[in-house]
């Protein structure tokens, strides 16, 4: 089974613009890794991490909550996730805080294992999404090779990282390492590079048989992930920025989806004027505030209120918010669901243009009528 042209309608390939998409989908991280290799950016990167977390990393977690809990339609579509996910996670938080020596390390450990998996799932989702936008359906062997490449980089990095035995610390929680034999990670690395070679060979074959070059943007997320987990894994300063790169991808996609859904809603609700700029500011502002509240304010307030050690509260809440994010994301971002896929095929320019073309049918202000 090979790829075939999937969608009859021609979709815009980029969400915003080739350069913006390139940078946000992982190009920035690829360029930065080069810069990190050539220059000593470690201190500058570490200084920037907190600020970037506030405007980039935290909001991307908040965006998930906004998408699920902020829309009645989404709540109706995923009722068990809406009410079940918070219950499960809060149960984990309570158990971790009550058992800081046993449950808390396992809770943190689980989050640390799942986190790069979540990155990988997003990388594959983005590649498939760009494939659809380009009219290329990644099924069969290309999909398997892509999956092995992307997941291979995560599993290899994870297995190599878990080859040590000394306990590690995540804020106030010490957790044990698995002590996986080194050869497991090395074999995963070999499998990953073999799959990468296979996928690139398929890309070449596709380009020749289709007489057009495979859009380069299809390779950007997977190459970026290779930089995050393998090529740049031991580059000081760079690896601390990896969550920001992942968040950038997420924010762009979630932002376009939000605008598309809101613009459609405005069209349906006659009498409402839609302003893309205002909507963007509202969405992003709320995401920043909610993100800050979840990651910074909650542990402080909780620790002060209960007397539980701040480091423990911080570690458990960070793990909890992220596990919730992984959980919810795994449910709500399914490209096979047309309600998800359709808005994700939109582009920012199209949304803005359509909103500008929409007739201003909002009732005129009373003063204007009177004047």
């Amino acid at each position, binding site marked *: 089974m090979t790829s075939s042209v999937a969608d009859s309608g021609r979709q815009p390939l980029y969400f915003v613009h080739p350069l913006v998409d390139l940078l946000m989908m992982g190009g920035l991280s690829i360029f930065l*890794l080069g810069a990190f290799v050539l220059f000593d950016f470690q201190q500058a990167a570490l200084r920037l991490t907190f600020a970037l977390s506030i405007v980039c990393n935290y909001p991307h977690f908040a965006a998930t909550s906004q998408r699920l809990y902020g829309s009645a339609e989404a709540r109706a579509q995923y009722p068990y996730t809406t009410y079940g996910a918070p219950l499960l996670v809060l149960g984990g938080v309570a158990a971790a805080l009550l058992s800081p020596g046993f449950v808390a390390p396992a809770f943190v450990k*689980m989050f640390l*294992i799942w986190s790069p998996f979540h990155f990988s799932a997003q990388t594959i989702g983005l590649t498939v999404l760009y494939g659809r936008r380009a009219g290329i359906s990644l099924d069969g062997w290309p999909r398997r090779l892509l999956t092995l490449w992307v997941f291979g980089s995560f599993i290899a990095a994870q297995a190599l990282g878990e080859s040590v035995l000394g306990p590690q610390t995540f804020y106030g929680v*010490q957790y044990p390492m698995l002590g996986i034999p080194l050869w497991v990670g090395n074999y995963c690395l070999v499998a990953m590079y073999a799959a990468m070679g296979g996928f690139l060979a398929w890309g070449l074959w596709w380009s020749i048989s289709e007489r057009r070059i495979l859009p380069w943007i299809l390779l950007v997320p997977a190459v970026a992930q290779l930089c995050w987990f393998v090529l740049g894994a031991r580059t000081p300063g760079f690896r601390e920025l990896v969550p920001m790169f992942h968040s950038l991808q997420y924010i762009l996609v979630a932002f376009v989806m939000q605008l598309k859904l809101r613009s459609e809603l405005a069209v349906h609700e006659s009498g409402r004027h839609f302003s893309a700029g205002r909507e963007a500011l509202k969405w992003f502002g709320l995401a920043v505030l909610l993100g800050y509240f979840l990651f910074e304010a909650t542990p402080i307030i909780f620790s002060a209120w209960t007397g539980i050690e701040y480091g423990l509260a911080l570690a458990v809440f960070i793990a909890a918010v992220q596990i919730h994010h992984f959980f919810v994301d795994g449910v709500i971002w399914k490209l096979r669901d047309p309600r998800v896929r359709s808005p994700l095929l939109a582009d920012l320019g199209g949304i803005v243009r359509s909103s500008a073309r929409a007739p201003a049918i909002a009732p005129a202000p009373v003063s204007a009528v009177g004047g």
Partner: protein
Amino acid sequence: MSRPSLAPSSLWRVALACLLGLLARPVLAAEVVAPTASPAAADVARPAAVEAVVYAVFDTTVGPIAVELLPEVAPKTVAQIRRLIELGVYDGVGIFRIHRGFVAQLHDAGSRPMPLSPEQLAAIQPIPAELTDVPHRRGVLSMAHRDDPDSAETSFSFLLGNAPHLDGKFTIFGRVLGSEPTLRAIESAAGPDPMQPLKSISVEHARIVDRATAMETANTPLTFPAGVDPGAAGKQAPRWTLLALTSAVALLALVTSLAALRTGGRALISLALATFLCAFFVAFAVLLFDLELFGALRPWIATLLLAVSVLSFKVMGRFDSPGRRPGA
């Protein structure tokens, strides 16, 4: 950054990974048949020049531990640890991890109750790894480090049993001399959670001493009869009952959810998956802390644990799925 500059390095990584992978297999096999008969102390290479050995005593809250630091095995580490002991860096440092039959590990000096002085702080520097073929046996002193092998600073472990899986990964820099009553007292404070010892034990004072003082403190020699694994006596068994129970519940819930995915029923799928995740999490936590108790099977169990943890994430995506109704 130009891609071609990375590509050759990637090829080298592949070749190196193949080679390392092939080399690592016999090492793993060797772990399974690692001899346990020889006394621990005999496995630590004796330094040729006895004068070079540094002796120290760690006066803990449960008794003294006499040690000899081996500069010929790890010169940089010994020089640094000696300096830290002389500066009083270890005074007040607690033992935060006691794993019966495995290790008793000292916390980082920065965690001790009384703050470090500027001189002490300045003395704490990362120590480059000095990896040798000296095996990790009961009584050995082994430096702890983070991801980076060159990141060891102050935390180290007293080995309470044989740990061949640590060989070549952590710097061994000394060994305990006798002090068996103290080691046993430390080991007896191990609880079900190694990170939560039943009793708070710390180093009251650490000092560099001469050989005579060290030998006097050591009082009873650390020797074991041939054929006896000194770590085995106090070894616990994994929590089999809890493991079996949680694994059975997780498996049953998983099978139920898979069946529900075929027949439909969003509520049943979600409930079964939630049960699976809860049961799996308990089994995961138990295994995480009992890994050391699986002996030679440890690396395999650890690999399996990682694989199942990854697969469990995949399962989460099916939560709230409407399933596929028959005929649909």
